[in-house]
């Protein structure tokens, strides 16, 4: 994180952290139902990608980077994300 203005009510990284915790709990809740299903699976994957993006942008600090180094994590999330999505859609006979 960079140049955190002290006066904010909460550090951006703390906010990000809390969102990630919330998404993790929801993911776990879905997991505990053992329900499965294409929609739920892809939803859980989406949460993971959002969390990954948050780690890249705010924890690793790539949000503050310009040029090619802005992209590696985004692309990295996209590629396995897409592969997993395709494989799951196929596994549901799509």
């Amino acid at each position, binding site marked *: *994180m*960079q*140049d*955190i203005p002290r006066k904010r009510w909460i*550090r951006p*990284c*703390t906010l990000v*952290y809390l969102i*990630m*915790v919330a998404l*993790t*709990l929801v*993911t*776990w809740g*879905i*997991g*505990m139902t*053992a329900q*499965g299903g294409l929609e739920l*699976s892809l939803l*859980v*994957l989406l*949460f*993971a*990608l959002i*969390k*990954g993006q948050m*780690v*890249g942008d*705010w*924890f*690793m*600090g*790539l949000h*503050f*980077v*310009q*040029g090619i*180094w802005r992209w*590696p*994590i985004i692309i*990295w*999330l996209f*590629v*396995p994300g897409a*592969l*997993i999505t*395709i*494989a*799951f859609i*196929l*596994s549901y006979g799509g």
Partner: protein
Amino acid sequence: MQKNKYPPGDLAIWIFILAELLVFAAFFGAYAFTRLKNVELFNYYQMTLDRNAALLNTLALITSSYFVVRAVADIREDDSKGCKRWLWAAIAMGAFFIVIKGGEYAHHFSAGVTLSSNTFYMFYLSLTFFHFMHVILGMVILAAVALKVGRGGYSADEHTGVETGASYWHMVDLVWLILFPLIYVMR
């Protein structure tokens, strides 16, 4: 806000991070497509995994990553003491992860599970174990950084080393964030 041309930390660690991420991406893709051919098997054995442990581990790594962010923020304000405290807290969370994951492994091994038991377990053990080794390596790196911080080796002006260790640790977190839903939840 001013933008940088390069990510925080030594560029060398970033080349490294990208190469490692590539390996994990290949494994994730392989998992998903192999599952395609063995959906029943994967769904069945996924149920033998401990999702509560996975939750604790996910929280541990997220929290640990957050602590590292705070450590970097502190050193940027020349606060070596704070930086050191956050780093050791992060390492403690890493240790927590190791203990929980070790418990899971102990459980599986005592049930006679091996890499050759079936394709699901092969992937489960390979993927989590490679990640496990990265957690250990990451902790070693963080500890080395923390020790140097403790000796007053970094400052607001010169703290590339802290950022380098931090970037590596976030990568370890990042990989787990995908691993967790993929192996424990998605079915």
